[in-house]
């Protein structure tokens, strides 16, 4: 089993960050990935979509996908959109 790629999320994940985030994740398609949310201060809806799509895609590929070190700001943003357990379930499935 190959070692998981570690991706550190940027502090500001607003609408401008969505396309670069998608590109960055897509570059590692097929490989297990660990997304680190320690630095996230702002998380917008479109970046959440990118992460949700990635979680779904990685699950479909059968590769590991997990979100770790979630900052308080990120946790709060996910709770606001009803997705506070979304990525923990995604990693579990």
């Amino acid at each position, binding site marked *: 089993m190959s070692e998981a790629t570690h991706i550190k999320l940027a502090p500001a994940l607003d609408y401008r960050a969505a396309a670069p985030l*998608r590109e960055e994740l897509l570059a590692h*398609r097929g490989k297990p990935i660990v997304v680190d949310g320690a630095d996230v201060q702002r998380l917008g809806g479109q970046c959440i979509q990118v992460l949700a799509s990635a979680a779904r895609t990685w699950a*479909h590929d059968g590769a590991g996908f997990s979100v770790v070190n*979630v900052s308080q700001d990120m*946790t*709060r943003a*996910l709770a606001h959109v*009803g997705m506070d357990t979304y990525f923990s379930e995604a990693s579990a499935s």
Partner: protein
Amino acid sequence: MDPMDAIKVTFFQECDEQLAELESGLMALEAGEGDRETVNAVFRAVHSVKGGAGAFGFEDLVKFSHTFETVLDLMRSDKLAISADAMHVMLRASDVLADLVHAARDGGSVDQGRCDALMEELDQLAHGDAAPAPSAAAPEGDAPLYADVEPDEWGFVPLRVVMDDEPPVGEEAWKIIFMPRAQLYAKGSDATILLRELALLGDCEIEVDDTLVPSLDTLDANGACLSWTIILHGDKDEAAIREIFEFVEGDCDLIIERTSVSAAAPEPPPVFAPAPVIAAAPIAAAPAPTPVAKQATAPSAAAASDSEGKGGQPAANATIRVDLERVDRLIDLVGELVINQAMLAQRVAETGVARSSNVALGLDELEQLTRELQDSVMAIRAQPVKSVFQRMPRLVREIATATNKQVRLVMDGEGTEVDKTVIERLSDPITHMLRNAVDHGLESTQDRIDAGKPAEGTIRLAALHRSGRIVIEVSDDGRGINRERVRAKAIEKGLISPDVNMTDEEIDNIIFLPGFSTASAISDISGRGVGMDVVKRSIQALGGRISITSNPGKGSTFTLSLPLTLAVLDGMVVSAADQTLIAPLTTIIETLQPKAGEVRRLGPNRSVIAVRDAFVPLVDVGVALGFRKEAAQPDSCVVLLVESEGGGRAALLVDDIQGQRQVVIKSLEANYQRVEGIAAATILGDGRVALILDVDGLIAQRVSETRAETQLAKAG
């Protein structure tokens, strides 16, 4: 809204109508103004409530309505007199029934003592004044609800349809469906911010819908594919909610509606263990009340394939949900505009302006535009019949299980579009017909095998457009109608005379008579023979017709034909006794110029006309509607050969035909009152009201006398 919730909402709306019908019927009976039809209507109201209640498992409601209905059935079959005392009990029973319906809908409770006392009084009515009917034994004590019901001759026992969710009870809340579009993000707004603002208003349950999220390689990072359903508890001002979305209203689809939610604490997500919030440190005391996301959709593989039918769809077209009242208002206004435009055109024409003048040309363009506008507006309300069809497979499965038959439902033409007002009223007739097809149409598995047929019966439900109408067909490959048995039963019930000769078609049509049923036992859900006459009535109320063709041993096909809309009508403009009238084009088979000798008088007032090799009753429209006393000379008039819903024909005698026109239907009942022989009204270009003929009504006035007259004419 969840489809099941939507069906339940419809059921309760229908219950309200049935309760209103029940009450007015009982009041009429109490005042001595009712007749047999009133008793039938009252019975059908209670029966309909019972049927729906059974499907949703509202057992108290089923139990009470069953007892109530039993008494009404005795009344219907003249075994119980309509006395003042009986009506008194009935009226109180209708109150209790209403209470039970409201309790089922809103989750309250009813006065059980009152309910039990009324049940006892109803039982006394049933047993005291009449020999108990087979159905009269009401369930007692804690006996299972359906224990008193014997399977009918086809082994049909009503089955409670178990819903996944319980009826909404208790607390009122706001349900907000928020579907951002890409431009919402492009303009710098963000769903997370809006949802955070919303959470500040009060306790929220937020459910995310991720069914449209594609895989990462096809995802548009700047698109919008997540949407949310938020239940906001408490009694907040709608304006406060709208204010949050004020600046993004054009950039999202937003539905805000009142809803009733379970008073009990919402359940945690059932599938997953209460996992800790990701791998994060606990949230520090937040400055704002943190909304509690109590349910999240899991992006599991199962969700991706989606068993609920929500997913698997291509990205849907952008849609917007609009209050139907607003659409109706728009349609009304456009109707007015069409009339106004016609009036304007006529006035301009009266001034003698040349057809090639700028004014006339401008008016032509206006006419085209109004017509296009009308078509477009009507298209707003057009919906595919799929919304009705999609409820049917489950129904067929349940009935198949209950009747122990193997059934395959084949559906066709689900995308056929029809006006929403028509769609809403299609559900009941289709349900009845499917139930009938499985229950009575198909043979038992063993009988099928014995007859050399596949063990699995096939039922086909199809929708198609034909001649400007929508046609719904329900066909089965079952045994077909047993005409001998139907005829025998009809004679036994006194519906037809034993010595009358009937064609196969006429015998088949007996099943549409009120009170006809070949079922010898009675069940909680169906079996009293209210099915097909209810179907026929509801179809006729929509301006539709129903027919049946049956092939013994091979199956039956019920065909419904309905107008595509109830707002406009293609009509033939005719005149009779200086009145302008509209005959619905769909009822007209042909127009004739009667010749002397073709018309034969029967007595002082009636005539028949020879149309090829048959005699058809001739109805002078001017006389029938009271516009003139003396019948016109047929050879100076025009005859419209029309056909009723039941297939009966008549010749309508009018003075002249002015042309064909699409007219906007205006309800006569709503604006004046019901008039025999008139279906509705419209406003013509010259501003006058023209009445739209109720062809069925006109034929019905004559049809009972017709058979004897035609035979006389043939003999003479």
